[in-house]
């Protein structure tokens, strides 16, 4: 009887893991589509999630008695509540945005942080609470029940949830449908946790029915909850890369990706600028490569009668939608390629007369890859001798602020590594034209020579882009900057500064509070907690490092990225088995695994540095696997060293989560953008070296 109950609890832990990881991924995507999708916000969401989870876990020590003393019924009811909170959290993240903030407006860092914390708190706190609480319930049935088994069950659930979402749910279901699926299973597991005679009692049956009703009702809220202040939603799709929406407003269609308007079908200005500024320079246009495209670009391109136009767009949902709604003209020479553009360029020998990059600002590591030396070099290799390369960025026309000045200077410096002439044109956005011949700034005259008519350029260019303004812009550049590289994504850091400047704020207060909290926590933590903390930080830091490096060398490939994340989750499992078996080695196992972590991160970075271009994909997976297994090994040992009491287990779980939270934030927003990949890896290795020395010297 006891054994059965134990198994039911462990099954519930696994199902909770599945439901919570799927919920986490969906709620993170929701927050991203509601707020600025920059690396800072991504890190902030994961950080909040982990810190709140850690707090919930920690709270179990204080509240897991008395009113909430461990018992099966309470565990069942709390798990049901978790199932209900999942869609409610997602809906709250979606709907409250336009109630708390002005609809259509952006939010600054502190407002975003407060919102994410506030909305995610109930779910995350409860989720964090349930893991040790399940252990407490098990220990009621069997005193001294090993915490490692709960940890292992949780990891099984997490890995399965990640894989289930990334490889299946994202393709077949909308967010609320996905949550219905995973949380129905959780509801069932929670309900059937109890023996049959207790399931029909009103205090169990009624909550279960209410939760089911909540899950079912949420299914009908998908599209109504996506309403916007201006326009009617006519198309909605969740692709693997993000949310694709089309809003129709007074005859105008606007494509929104992840909540931000990308382009509308009435944008004449940008379409003309991005096509004619580069192509007007060429005597003849045969082959053109577009990396992302918009609205009326095809109409403008046709004026040059190109032989082929290759249009690379990673997300098939975007092109399908654009063509369906007539937002992109289908021209006979158009060849649509659904791949990562870097990957595509690496795989083709074709050369182009013009390569036009039409991407948003480099706010994320993923977009930054298209503004680096490596990418510019790759582009140059695919240009004909008289070819031209064009990209654009945001910059105000009348004054260049300090972050913008640095951004433009870095871009100019990066481009000048490969092109002898670079012309910056301050249009609707700021256009960079790069070539190995003298670029002519007299675009209207060039167009007239070609008998090409435009609505915007010929009339407005002479007033907006005067020789004075072109000279002024060039004079704004500073020479004391380094080029933007794959390994040192400097532009991402500048985008952070720009974002903070927009809201007249600074991250110093936040980072100060974080540092203070961290120092207090570490000062009070025990030796094994410190090791687990550094291990948690190492795991998340390495995961970000691996994903980043993988994208640099292989391009953005959804399945492989999903595989990396799954490997990181799944590797904990065998690690925990090994740790459980060898836990009697105690601190010696810490020493071995810490040394393994240091060696592996050092070897990985050395391999990337010296042979990054020839490294096969499996090396990334193997590294992820080693880190994950090593971390998995340490957890049972820490639990064993901490003793069989509940508070010790709680501290171990919390240390792991808090370490992961800090690792995410520090690696994503401090180390990578400001110090680059190599120093980040060095910092992770140094952190583990401190942990190793600490263990070696004996931390008693």
């Amino acid at each position, binding site marked *: 009887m006891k054994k059965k109950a134990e198994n039911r609890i462990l099954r519930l832990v696994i199902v909770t893991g599945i439901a919570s990881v799927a919920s986490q991924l969906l709620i993170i995507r929701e927050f991203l589509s509601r707020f600025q999708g920059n690396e800072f916000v991504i890190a902030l969401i994961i950080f909040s999630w982990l810190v709140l989870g850690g707090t919930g876990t920690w709270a179990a020590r204080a509240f897991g008695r008395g009113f909430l003393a461990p018992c099966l019924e309470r565990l069942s009811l709390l798990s049901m509540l978790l199932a209900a909170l999942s869609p409610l959290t997602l809906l709250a993240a979606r709907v409250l945005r336009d109630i708390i903030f002005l609809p*259509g407006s952006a939010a600054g860092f502190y407002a975003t942080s407060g919102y994410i914390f506030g909305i995610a708190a109930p779910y995350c706190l409860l989720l964090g609470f349930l893991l040790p609480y399940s252990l407490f319930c098990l220990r009621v049935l069997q005193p001294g029940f090993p915490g490692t088994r709960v940890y292992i069950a949780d990891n099984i659930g997490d890995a399965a949830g990640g894989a289930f979402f990334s490889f299946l749910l994202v393709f077949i279901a909308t967010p609320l449908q996905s949550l219905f699926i995973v949380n129905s299973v959780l509801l069932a597991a929670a309900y059937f946790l109890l023996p049959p005679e207790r399931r029909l009692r009103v205090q169990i049956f009624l909550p279960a029915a209410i939760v089911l009703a909540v899950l079912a009702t949420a299914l009908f809220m998908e599209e109504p909850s996506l309403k916007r202040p*201006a326009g009617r939603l006519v198309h909605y799709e969740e692709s693997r890369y993000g949310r694709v929406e089309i809003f129709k407003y007074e005859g*105008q269609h606007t494509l929104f990706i992840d909540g931000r308007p990308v382009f509308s079908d009435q944008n004449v200005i940008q379409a003309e600028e991005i096509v004619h500024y580069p192509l007007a320079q060429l005597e003849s246009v045969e082959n053109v490569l577009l990396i992302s495209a918009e609205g009326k670009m095809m109409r403008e391109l046709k004026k040059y009668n190109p032989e082929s136009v290759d249009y690379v767009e990673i997300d098939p949902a975007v092109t399908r939608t654009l063509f369906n709604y007539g937002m992109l003209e289908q021209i006979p020479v158009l060849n649509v390629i659904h791949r990562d553009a870097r990957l595509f360029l690496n795989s083709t020998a074709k050369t182009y007369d013009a390569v036009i990059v039409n991407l948003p600002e480099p706010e994320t590591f993923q977009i930054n890859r298209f503004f680096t030396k490596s990418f510019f070099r790759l582009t140059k290799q695919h240009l004909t001798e008289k070819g031209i390369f064009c990209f654009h960025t945001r910059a105000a026309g009348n004054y260049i602020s300090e972050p913008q000045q640095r951004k433009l200077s870095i871009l100019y410096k990066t481009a000048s590594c490969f092109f002898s002439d670079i012309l910056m044109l301050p249009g609707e956005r700021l256009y960079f034209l790069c070539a190995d011949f003298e670029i002519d700034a007299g675009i209207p005259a060039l167009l007239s020579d070609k008998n090409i008519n435009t609505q915007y350029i010929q009339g407005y260019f002479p*007033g907006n882009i005067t020789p004075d303004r072109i000279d002024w812009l060039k004079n704004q550049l500073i020479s004391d900057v380094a080029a933007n590289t794959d390994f040192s994504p400097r532009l991402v850091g500048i985008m952070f500064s720009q974002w903070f400047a927009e809201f007249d704020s600074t991250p110093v207060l936040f980072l100060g509070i974080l540092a203070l909290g961290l120092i207090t926590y570490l000062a009070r933590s025990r030796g094994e907690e410190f090791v687990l903390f550094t291990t948690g930080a190492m795991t998340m830091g390495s995961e970000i490092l691996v994903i980043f490096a993988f994208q640099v060398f292989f391009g953005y490939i959804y399945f492989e990225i999903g595989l990396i994340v799954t490997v990181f989750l799944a590797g904990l499992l065998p690690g925990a088995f090994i740790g459980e078996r060898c836990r009697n080695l105690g601190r010696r196992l810490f020493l071995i695994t810490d040394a393994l972590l240091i060696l592996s991160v050092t070897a990985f970075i050395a391999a990337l540095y010296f042979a990054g271009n020839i490294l096969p994909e499996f090396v990334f997976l193997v590294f992820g696997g080693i880190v994950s297994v090593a971390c998995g090994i340490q957890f049972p040992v820490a639990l064993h060293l901490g003793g069989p009491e509940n508070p010790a287990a709680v501290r171990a779980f919390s240390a792991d989560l808090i370490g992961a939270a800090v690792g995410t934030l520090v690696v994503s927003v401090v180390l990578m953008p400001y110090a680059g990949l190599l120093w980040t890896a060095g910092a992770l290795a140094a952190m583990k070296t401190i942990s190793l020395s600490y263990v070696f010297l004996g931390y008693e």
Partner: protein
Amino acid sequence: MNNISRRKFLLGCGGFCFWAGLGVPGLMTGEAKAADLESKSVGRVHIFRDDAPEKLWKWSREAFSYEKISGSKTVCNICPNSCVLSPGDRSICRSKVNMDGTLYTLAYGNPCSVHIDPIEKKPLYHFLPRSRAFSLAEAGCNFRCLNCQNWEISQARPSEVRHYDLFPQQAVERALRSGADAIAYTYSEPITFFEYTIDTARIAKQQGLKNLLISNGYINQEPLLALCEVIDAANINLKSFDDKLYRKLNGGRLQPVLDTFRTLNEQNVHFEMTTLVVPGYVDDPEMIRNMCKWITDNLGGGHPLHFLRFIPHYKLDRLPPTPVSTLEQMRQIAMEEGIRYVYIGNVPGHEANHTWCHNCGKLLIKRQGYDLSLPGLEDGRCRFCDTEIPGVWNKKT
């Protein structure tokens, strides 16, 4: 002695509080006035306490119009924000500071942005077409528009931006050297660099240059009247016709802007109006109709009105651009209400970029961007029906 009932007592107290609250400004004590003014600040707009620099710099001047109240506090009288500053405080617009009881501007002779633009870019369509404007901006603004195109200078302190060293006399000389026909005080908000604007404008006027004010119109009467003596044309933003929207989107209020229009009209300053049509906010046909009604009732139908297409920008970056049909609808409403010259901006090639005679409907000025031809305009009159077209069409006017 008659007993006073509790009801009467309460009414009496209420009445006293009401009148005391309204207060006759002249009878208020300094503290009461300061408190009254401070309570009028709009929403998220606030002064910057203890934010003044240690000492003044070369580009400082005593403010044009302010009052000293209650000891060393000052009240700036330039705009309706009426910032009450204690020593060491900085104004809402970021350019005025109280230094030991004297109010100074820190934006004088240090423009951060200097360019030469076609006058049509301001936009001014009925004032010396094809002329060029030497355009100046200092840092700072008394508004907090969520869609500001120039937020990097409008929402900055003068010391936070790179700037030129161009005192009024030098600015005028440079404008003359550049061959410009006018000086435009623009990009950020000239009301916040009022002292620089008026001093430069006075010299420019003496030197035969025109002065153009491109502004949000959030200014008090006294400084506005002083400006009217030197300003030749203005484009004033009428951001909406709803005080709540003004507070929400711009951090200001509507009524002072309407007062500015009335004053400019009374002072016979040529002005044009610009409304940015923000989807979901400034596109309510009823509001636009009321706005246009107010314009025709109070200012007449002769002042050009520009409806501009909104493009997502700055903090208002999650809205779609304005559909062209919405702009056309707004234009139709405005014309129905009697505004004779209504233009659509930020939509290249649209027929509402051109000027059509309000009497015979013939084409007067054809615009392709800043490239103009005047097929129907002669000496400020329609060549086809001889109707006088409102505006300033040659320099001698």
